[in-house]
């Protein structure tokens, strides 16, 4: 039993391999399956009759208006919510960091939107936005403003989805930024205060530069989260009106399970995966850089 150090290492391999192999089976196989399927025009009623079409599905995508629209919607549903979450989340984190009297308990409320089932979040906002009997209508009437039907026009529909998305995402951003803020040494601020910097100046010159790394990490997390949006759209707008709130993965769902064009849907999702992978790469690299410390 030479090289005991190595055997101890190999011993741990035994702990990991079975699970890892199981996991690969659960994940790699399906992924390749989908990729393979995207090369066919799959007919679910007569699977054996499905013709191999090579890259035709992908070429069709390039000319598919609905697909192009879904890409636009995806971009809107990533940039705007993430930006809003970042800005509002930062503001909230800064505000809480000041520890204003009597409002410390707010932090514990934060959990709520973050842990709710997404379907319930969609539901909550649907109830709120229902024309005429929803919460918005109530407050509109109270304030003397006209009630608006948010569901029948593209831009209001997007606003609804974005609102729900931001509502759900702010807590995570705030909590992570707050945790980081609390690790910043107070001495920096004290020195700056002695040097005569006002409140805004302190935060602009000290806080912001120090927070940039964590803001980057949090942003990437939120982008990944935004890419996965589904139940909220399903229950709130169903992708409507006319695809105005239909991002790529929702489009894939509709193509695959409403029209049962599974080959085409596979192509859509493979393209989406590639986009996602490119976004995910910096995160992975960052995570491994961090672990090296």
């Amino acid at each position, binding site marked *: *039993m*030479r*090289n*005991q*150090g*190595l055997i101890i290492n190999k011993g741990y391999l035994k702990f990991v391999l079975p699970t890892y192999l199981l996991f690969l089976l659960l994940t790699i196989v399906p992924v390749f399956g989908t990729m393979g399927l995207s090369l066919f025009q799959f007919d679910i009623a007569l699977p054996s009759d499905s013709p191999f079409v090579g890259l035709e599905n992908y070429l069709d995508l390039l000319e598919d208006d609905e697909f192009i629209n879904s890409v636009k919607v995806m971009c809107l549903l990533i940039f705007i919510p993430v930006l809003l979450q970042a800005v509002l989340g930062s503001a909230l984190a800064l505000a809480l960091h000041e520890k204003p009297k009597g409002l410390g308990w707010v932090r514990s409320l934060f959990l709520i939107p973050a842990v709710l089932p997404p379907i319930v979040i969609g539901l909550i906002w649907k109830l709120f936005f229902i024309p005429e009997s929803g919460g918005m209508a109530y407050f509109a009437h109270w304030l003397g403003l006209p009630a608006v039907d948010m569901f029948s026009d593209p831009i209001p529909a997007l606003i609804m989805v974005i609102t729900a998305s931001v509502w759900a995402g702010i807590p995570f951003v705030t909590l992570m930024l707050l945790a980081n803020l609390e690790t910043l040494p107070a001495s920096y601020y004290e020195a700056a205060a002695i040097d005569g910097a006002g409140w805004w100046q302190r935060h602009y010159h000290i806080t912001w530069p120090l927070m940039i790394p964590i803001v980057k990490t949090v942003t990437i997390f939120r982008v990944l989260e935004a890419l996965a949006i589904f139940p909220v759209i399903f229950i709130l707008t169903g992708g409507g009106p006319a695809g105005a709130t239909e991002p790529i993965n929702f489009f894939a769902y509709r193509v695959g399970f409403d029209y049962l064009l599974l080959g085409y849907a596979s192509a859509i999702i493979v393209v989406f995966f590639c986009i996602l992978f490119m976004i995910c790469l910096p995160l992975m690299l960052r995570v491994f850089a961090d672990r090296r410390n």
Partner: protein
Amino acid sequence: MAGILLKNVKKRFENGFVAVERLNLEIYDKEFLVLVGPSGCAKSTTLRMVAGLEEITEGELYIGDTRVNDTPPKDRNIAMVFQDYALYPHMNVYNNIAFGLKMRKIPEAEIDRLVREAAEILGIDDLLKRKPRQLSGGQRQRVALGRAIVRKPQVFLFDEPLSNLDAKLRVQMRTELKKLHEKLQTTIIYVTHDQVEAMTMGTRIVVMKEGAIHQVGAPLDLYDHPANRFVAGFIGSPSMNFVPCLLREDKGRVLVDTRDFLLELGETQAALIRERGLGAYTLGVRSEDIHPRGGASGDLPTQPFTATVNVTEPLGKETFLELDSGIHNLFAVFSRERAVKARDRLELELDMGKIHLFETGGQERAVF
């Protein structure tokens, strides 16, 4: 019998770093051997190789008559006490101590007897139901000791066990460990960076630096006859004074020229120097061997010199002095009775029987 032999041991880590090049050491049965040295000297690595927690790249390790290079730690019949005690936080004291015995599948009744026996020896029998987080540093240390002694191993390995204790407790535990050694009559290998611990506790000391052994011997041997400049400077507090000097002949006498003062070597010393060759050396003299004029003992002729007192540090029973002899600064220790103050100009002499001369190159070995 449980002596330990390390033969031509080499340790190379995975990243290529060679911590130990070629180590040879024999540890006698029942002795209290201390491995001491500055950080990075590989004393802990050596200990861990004996324990089996680090793999030996090349060379042989014997415990008793058995070659144990490939034997796992649990079969080497050793016990180890770690620097942070490494107590199992979720178990109470009793179970902490009993764990090793349970692993060996010793019957419950026997385990109970052994645990209580060990607890009694260490005075922790009233703590058996407590968890580690409820114990003080000293108590945790005893539990770690209990865990080690209960298995009645052939060898005890200690990895800086007293470093986490406060000064007073450390002094107390030093004595206790020595007494424990007396009582248990088992080989102990003890690693520390503190030369005071090494001197007070070991029957033999191994001074290490950068993976190599510089000297092995009884404490006072190392103190009086250091083999090189490193050992001379490492052992003893305050540290030995080192003065660069030139050895030259003048009218048949061998003189030590420090540029501040001249010393004349006695016959034996001179002969040794003539053998090695004249030239540049380093003079080493301990603070207690610098005396005011007329105070030196021994029958070698003494040569007086003068120096000014820079700083005095009264410690009660003694006073430390920093002396300025011109170019060099020296540290001396006077007994309290000698009244001195800063800026006094003193006449001093050295105890010539106690000086050392070290080569200036290579290992900086001692001539005497």
